[in-house]
């Protein structure tokens, strides 16, 4: 038994090493200049001092990001877009899904069918009409033009509908109403806590989706001061040549906030993913 556990630890450590290797490479690459970029796989080596040639490593790329290239603004844009969209989308989807699951109203079946149908439309198909619509309502080149279309995705509404059906007992809602609870309080105080794992999962997914989204902001936004990190990093990709170290430093900065958020939300994220996987 003990031997088997050591084997498992060994295999898991190997898997962890393989997973972490690209991040280690990324960080090492972000410390190199173009001149030394291709000279070594990870860190530049020499014979003296720990075997690492420290003179070829610097935080110059990070300094340039924030002092020369206004990367802080892109970081703020990304945090704003991801957090605001994530929160609004989660609230709207939870409310929409709950309504579809627990309210009986005329046309409920049709609305549910429309939500399901909307999930079948590939996102790239919506890019051109979405652009035209944003232009006609004056939201092109604005952060609102990215947030508003993303606050009620069909997938989220359907996800919360299913979560409400399986996790929110009708009897509990009726008891709350008998006790004089308003519909909004019933939703926020009774229903939301019951679907909390799904909230964490959906919030995480939305945050990551918006954080990593490249195409939509690239098409909708025109002013560099509104670019999120994904587009700002892509701007470093020059037409004539690449500043690899700068790109890697930008990518490192892009990864860190997501990593922190995942660590903060991982318990709910995992529980949301596994809820419903076990009976009882």
């Amino acid at each position, binding site marked *: 038994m003990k031997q088997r556990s050591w084997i498992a630890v060994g295999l898991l450590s190997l898997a962890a090493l393989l997973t972490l290797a690209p991040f280690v490479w990324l960080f090492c690459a972000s410390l190199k200049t*173009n*001149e030394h*970029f*291709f*000279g070594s796989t990870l860190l530049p080596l020499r014979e003296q001092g720990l075997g690492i040639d420290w003179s070829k490593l610097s935080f110059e790329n990070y300094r340039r990001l924030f002092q020369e290239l206004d990367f802080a*603004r892109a970081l*703020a*844009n990304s*945090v*704003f877009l991801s*957090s*605001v969209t*994530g*929160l609004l989308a989660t609230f709207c989807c939870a409310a929409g899904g709950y309504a579809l699951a627990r309210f009986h109203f005329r046309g409920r079946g049709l609305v549910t069918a429309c939500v399901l149908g909307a999930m079948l439309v590939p996102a790239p198909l919506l890019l*051109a009409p979405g*652009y*035209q619509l944003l*232009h006609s309502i004056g939201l*092109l080149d604005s*952060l609102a033009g990215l947030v508003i279309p993303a606050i009620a995705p069909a997938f989220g509404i359907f996800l919360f509908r299913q979560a409400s059906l399986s996790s929110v007992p009708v009897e509990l809602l009726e008891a709350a109403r008998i006790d004089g609870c308003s519909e909004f309080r019933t939703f*926020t*105080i009774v229903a*939301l*806590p*019951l*679907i*909390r*794992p799904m*909230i*964490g999962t959906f*919030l*995480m997914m939305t*945050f990551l989706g918006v954080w990593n989204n490249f195409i939509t902001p*690239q*098409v909708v936004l*025109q*002013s*560099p*001061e509104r670019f999120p990190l994904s587009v700002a990093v*892509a*701007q470093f*990709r*020059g*037409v*004539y*040549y*690449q*500043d*690899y170290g700068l790109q890697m430093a930008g990518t490192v900065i892009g990864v860190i906030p997501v990593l922190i*958020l995942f660590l*903060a*939300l991982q*318990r*709910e994220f*995992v*529980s949301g993913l*596994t*809820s419903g*996987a*076990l009976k009882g």
Partner: protein
Amino acid sequence: MFATRATPDRDGSPISSGVWILIVLALVSSAALAFWPSGRRDSRTMWLFAKPHQDTYTPIIDEWNRLRDPDIETILLGRAALDRRLLSSFLSGTPAADLIEAERQNAARAFTGSLDAVGFVDLTDRIDAEGIRSRINPPSFAPWMSRGRIFGLPHDVHPVMLGYRADVFEAARIDVDSIRTWDDFERVLRPLMDTNGDGEPDRYLLNLWETSTDHIEVLLLQAGGGFFDDAGRVIIDSPINARVLARIVAWCQGPRRIAADAPNFTASGNQLKAEGFVLSSFFPDWMCDVWKHELPQLAGKIKLMPLPAWDEGERRTSVWGGTMLGIPRSAVKSPEDFEELWSFAKHLYLSKDLATDLYRSSGIVTPVVEFWSDPVFDEPDAYFASQPKGRMYIGLAPQVPARTSSPYNTLALSRVQDALVQLSEETRRTRQYDEARLRERASHYLKRAHDMVAAQIERNVFLSSAGGVP
């Protein structure tokens, strides 16, 4: 087990610590953006796609803005984003900048419809009236002309030379002046491929592969081939093109192989170049600066020479890339608007300061002929073993072949590449490397490509009635 630990009823709150973090982030970032100083001004905008261009233009634009109102503001876009916005603007009227610096492939897409529907202002009459046509190297207008009309001011010439590993060539006592044709190139340099004497190649003479579309076009244009003639008719199945394709296949496989793939703009390609796996590459003027940035370790080891000709005494250069400055029709609401934008366009592109700064910062040679005598072009370049590369490029500039402005050029290039890949596959299978046979088979595949492109153009009533393309 996880589900039990995360039971929502445990504390009864729908909001976990993670959600609180997000709420705080949303509030802080909203406040930060609300109070962030805005850089927006009431100004004319100019879209461009290359950071080095933007950096070079900044002092000239700053000077312009100091003296005039409204200001000009540059906005840097990725090429794909520029392409989409340009088309959206021209086809559906979405907003565009007041001036657009477009790359050849981007701009060509604007020439698909009737002349009236081209999204750029027709500059032909003003260019002729103000004598600008005679000031600019004639081939530089070609990519921006459609059906005889000019829609942009040219930014460059982009002659192509061959960059070679001077350290290797000189160690082997090779006199590059003796290499006048591609046949000479193969014959004189072949011994360099085997470094350990085992009869097998250890490195290759030319950075080229069957899938390198840019290189294929460079060689086709150098040979006098291409996809469209001066009248705009499709000429893909020409004997010249067949000869070039046959030669490329012979260079990439079989007993005459001299080429290997070290892709430009990639880390792996740079590594192969640095290691000397390929000994020469195509060098348009703008490529010089790319190498300086990406391969600084080769400083002093690279030299430039004119491309070997396809036949003795023929053209020793080609062309790769191209940029123009155009004024979108949507930006011109009144004659005053046009005058203001046109003045700026001339001030920028016909400026001597720009010509010298652009050369110093990006290695790009100006198309304005009167500036070619500037001493900046005679300066020795340390990266290229102190060669006066500017003067060398200028010496070749008048020979640069004309580039087409056809919106079907990308399609034609794809179909010709398909033909080349089919020819390569067949040759790998049959192992018949005889040049006459390769040419015959190349003609066969090119005929197919020709028919496909011609059929596509035929569907475009604006261009088919005009004889083909610009």
